[in-house]
């Protein structure tokens, strides 16, 4: 599971209002190289929840991202920033671990890189 995915997910158990962001319990994190596509990264930047991304990256062992969300102007001028963002979003993989709901503590397991977001019968 990559951070780009983590940035989209929240806990959707019935009754939970504050299910985002999910805390990452990193079991096994690996790095996989992905071709750099600056257009794609710029396109995604606008949709991200920055704080959640920085937190998530830290849980996966990457602390190079700035705390505050940079201006859009940085995207055009600073390629090294784009590369860092690319690395954080697409190249860090959580193979085994869990995503934990901040409100209920419910753990959504991540196995073989695939998060299991299915709810149990009593959570629906």
């Amino acid at each position, binding site marked *: *599971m*990559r951070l*780009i*995915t983590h*940035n*989209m*997910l*929240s*806990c*959707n158990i019935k009754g939970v209002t504050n*299910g*985002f*962001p999910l805390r990452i319990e990193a079991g096994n994190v690996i790095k*996989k190289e*992905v*071709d750099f*596509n600056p*257009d*794609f990264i710029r*396109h*995604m930047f606008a*949709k991200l*929840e920055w704080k959640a991304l920085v937190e998530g990256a830290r849980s996966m062992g990457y602390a190079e991202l700035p705390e505050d969300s940079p201006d859009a102007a940085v995207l055009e001028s600073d390629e090294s920033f784009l590369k860092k963002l690319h690395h954080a979003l*697409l190249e860090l993989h959580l193979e085994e671990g869990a995503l934990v709901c901040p409100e209920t503590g419910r753990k*959504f*397991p991540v*196995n*073989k*890189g*695939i*998060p*299991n*977001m*299915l*709810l*149990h*019968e*009593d959570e*629906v």
Partner: protein
Amino acid sequence: MWFLCVFYHRLLDFRKPEVEALAELFGEEIAENESLQWRLPVHHHNDTPFHFVQLSSEEIARNIAKRSILVKGMYELWGEGTCYEELKDSILSYSDSRKLQFLTSDSTFRISVETFGKGLTFDEQKDRIQSLTYIPFEGRVNLKNPDHNFFLMEMIESEENNGLQPILQRRIFFGREVGFADRKLLPTFQLKSRTYLGPTAMDAEMAFLMANQAKATSGKLVYDPFVGTGSILVSAAQFGAMTMGADIDIRVVRDGRGPDCNVWSNFKQYGLPMPVALLRMDNNLPPWRSGLKEIFDAIICDPPYGVRAGGRKSGGRKILRGTVDPYTVPDDKRTDHIPSTGAYSLVECVHDLLHLAARMLVMKGRLVFFFPVLRDETGGEVKFPEHPCFKLVAVSEQILSSRYSRFLLTMVKVEPYSEEIKEAARLMHLEFRENHLKWLEDGNIHSSVFKPIDSSQIHTDPKAFKDPKPKYRGKYV
């Protein structure tokens, strides 16, 4: 500029929508609520492989032909006629300023003869090429790799034509090739040699057609909420898109059939970039964070029709019916518990899909999906699900059996999502469900497709049983 567009003679309903989508992708300016201009050759029926289309540049025509699955070639027409005399007049009257630049002495060329409706011997082909001596070719012939490729295409009149409308009159076209199809694509990607398959894996040709309808290209994010074995995403990835998929069945998505036989290995087989994400989730209760919207450029999918694979959603049969209260699984059993899932009707599934697309697609993003329809029930026009955020831009029928077809629907998001729209959509959904045939709601499409033929319908007289109409294959294949 008008181009002669020659199609492969298959999937007739899919041909023009594909060209329209690709034209838009490659920069053709098409006004709101308008489409490309098409013209038929004289005496030809709409099913003909020959169509004239107006495009603003040769480059767009070339790009369309290269990426298209159903276009065989795009040509600049130099002349046409019902016989070779007419063809000669037509070619001679075509402006020299257009012709001469391709006939120069320092260029190489080739003339190919193609016939539709009858094969020609090598000598017959040679004779036809020789008859073109009035065209001042000054360059040298190069059969392998010419600068300019010319085609002499003859459509020969015939009564029987694989169930096509009979061709009333011969027509001959002569043109310069502007663009041609990539014939290596389908043989490379065919399912026959795919590592990981499932029962409903989308056939390669259709998956590419869907990816073209969705305008999948580099820099875009394409999502499939019913990913299964990833067959649709593979095609989108081949065209350069970043892909993402989800499925409720974890065995298909995570495990596959082993470490070298799963969704990832399908991408590895073709050297394509891996999907950005694969998730297990329920589209009926998706885990998207509440602020998330307008993130996908296209959603391409094949929702479960309930015929060969049924849809599932969270809850379990008994809970959904209310026979049993939601139960709590004891803590010690929770970690490996596989939550029960219950039946998920096609109508509800499509409603959730439209809702997902309305929220998650960027403006002008495309939703491309299949919708099954029973054939004998609908006497008149088929009704499709609607949503206030979407405009239906293309409908293509693929007949699957005598009992049912599926329609590939292409919808474009034209309105942003809002709470008011959500309410309007809910009402549209209820109306669709109420007014539509009962078979959709009950999931009875499966029984309708597989019910045995009523034996009383089988005539005892073998002659009478013979099909009165010749089988028209056009929409089947």
